[in-house]
């Protein structure tokens, strides 16, 4: 196959990937988009297999089958609530794969046309080490993010003295290593870069706490793209450069949307350490205030007599696996002629769009699921807001209390509706550690209990 033919086929593959992303602009076109993505990948792989230098079909075929079987098995078995950690785990694989490809190029530069061992071009070396560096950070950062999401590692931010200084020093050290590597091309320096970058990846994610995870997961998504880009530059492969840039841009935009949803700069999320420490400051004033409590029957009665209900789900719904029971409740209310809709805050859950997927899993039609901007002005005309597993994203203090750590964060205006039903396990504060004044309002009724059990009980009372 001629070089031009390869370039054209790679271009087609890259276009397919662009269409794959483009398809996601609407649920109806999205499945076709996914097929474009698969076709693009098949074209890329077959084209590469046609290279003259590629001869060991048996080994490559076996490797694809083994990897493919593992991937298929995991993807088919995974619970939808565990998606965030699955995505984090997959990111780590992209990162480490990038490291291996860079290492392969370093040990056998001739196969990639970038020079001979010990005499690789300077620019190739720089590109290679940058790809390796980003890949290794993505790998270890994602593993730690996976651990935090899975619960094997504490989700609490771990902060220590001089954290940022240490990270900055390590970064400086890596830069120094890369310079040395470009001069002496020594394998030991290459592997030092790998290991120090892995260490840095851990240190970067360690201070970032549970609810900031949507930002971290999107950021690692972005890194995995830039790593692919770095490898693309090393191999002068436009397909890798284009795809890497698409993925990098996608992750960067998602990180931006997520941090905007929390009214925080990406920098402050990256530096981490948010949550927990402010807990004491705001909560003391409220300890003697009265909270109105209700049970499932009260909730059923209130909602049955309403015209419109907006359901506000949060991470707690995912934890309790309450989405199916919740949908059942919504269905009964709809049968009664009540207008039931769902309001999703951009940072609800542990990854971008987490709540939408869970509601879709429970067969909630996507037309009933609305974003913050689309639904926020409807709360004053709504009789009942049903908050389930969300907390900080409904806290009116974000609008009024300038001293609050969440001040300025866009919130769902549930307090403007006539009645707020708040399903919660206990009076504990949300992730930000800020007390929610909504609990003490006259129009709020607290429903204490497990989210799933509560929905089931309400369903029974409604029947």
């Amino acid at each position: 196959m001629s070089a031009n033919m390869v370039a054209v086929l790679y271009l087609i593959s890259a276009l397919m990937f662009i269409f794959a992303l483009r398809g996601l602009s609407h649920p109806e076109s999205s499945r076709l988009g996914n097929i474009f993505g698969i076709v693009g990948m098949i074209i890329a792989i077959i084209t590469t297999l046609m290279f003259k230098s590629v001869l060991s079909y048996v080994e490559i075929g076996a490797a694809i089958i083994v990897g493919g079987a593992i991937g298929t098995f995991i993807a088919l078995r995974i619970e939808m609530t565990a998606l965030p950690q699955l995505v984090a785990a997959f990111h780590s694989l992209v990162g480490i794969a990038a490291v291996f490809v860079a290492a392969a190029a370093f040990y056998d530069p001739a196969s990639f046309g970038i020079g001979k061992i010990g005499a690789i071009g300077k620019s190739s070396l720089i590109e290679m080490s940058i790809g390796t560096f980003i890949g290794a950070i993505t790998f270890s950062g994602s593993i730690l993010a996976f651990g935090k999401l899975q619960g094997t590692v504490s989700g609490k931010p771990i902060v220590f003295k001089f954290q940022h200084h240490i990270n900055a020093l390590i970064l400086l050290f890596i830069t120094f290593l890369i310079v040395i590597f470009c001069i002496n091309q020594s394998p030991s320096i290459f592997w030092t870069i790998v290991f120090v970058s892995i260490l840095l990846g851990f240190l970067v994610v360690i201070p970032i706490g549970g609810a900031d995870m949507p930002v971290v997961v999107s950021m690692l998504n972005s890194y995995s793209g830039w790593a692919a880009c770095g490898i693309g530059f090393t191999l002068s492969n436009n397909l890798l450069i284009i795809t890497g840039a698409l993925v990098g841009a996608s992750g960067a935009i998602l990180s931006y949307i997520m941090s905007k949803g929390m009214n925080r700069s990406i920098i402050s999320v990256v530096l981490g350490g948010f949550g927990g420490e402010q807990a004491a400051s705001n909560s003391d004033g409220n300890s003697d205030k009265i909270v109105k409590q209700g049970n499932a029957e009260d909730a059923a009665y209130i909602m049955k007599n309403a015209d419109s209900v907006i359901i506000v789900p949060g991470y707690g719904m995912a934890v309790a696996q309450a989405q199916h029971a919740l949908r059942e409740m919504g269905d009964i209310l709809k049968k009664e002629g009540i207008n039931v809709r769902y309001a999703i805050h951009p940072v609800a859950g542990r990854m971008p769009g987490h709540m939408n997927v869970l509601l879709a899993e429970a067969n909630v039609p996507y037309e009933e699921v609305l974003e913050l901007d689309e639904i926020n002005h409807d709360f004053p005309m709504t009789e009942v807001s049903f908050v389930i597993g969300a907390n900080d994203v409904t806290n009116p203090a974000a609008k009024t209390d300038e001293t609050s750590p969440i001040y300025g964060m866009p919130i769902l205006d549930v307090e403007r509706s006539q009645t707020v039903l708040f399903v919660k396990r206990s009076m504990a504060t949300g992730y930000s550690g800020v007390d929610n004044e909504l609990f003490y309002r006259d129009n709020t009724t607290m429903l204490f209990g497990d989210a799933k059990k509560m929905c089931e009980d309400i369903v029974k009372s409604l029947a």
Partner: protein
Amino acid sequence: MEAHSSEVFVIGLTVFFLACIIGYYVVWSVTPALHSPLMGVTNAISSVIIVGAILAAGPLGHDTSKIFGIIGVVLASVNIFGGFIVTYRMLSMFKKKPKKEQKDK
């Protein structure tokens, strides 16, 4: 040789920036409801790095580079299959459901 390699780099850079701009506009047009599938599919396509791994694994014989290549192919394949399948699973949940008896208004 030196002039040639810098030319290649500039072409790569051109492609890179144009792709970033395309990515920017395409991703902003993604509906927020599908941000999770977006992560799934970007995950899958970023494994196009398998192209590099196949090149490394390609030659006959058994040197270090080839072993790294094979490992790379395995890892990237996990991601390609896993990423596309999990995206497919997510997207099929967003299918319009055939309405049962209750859609009376």
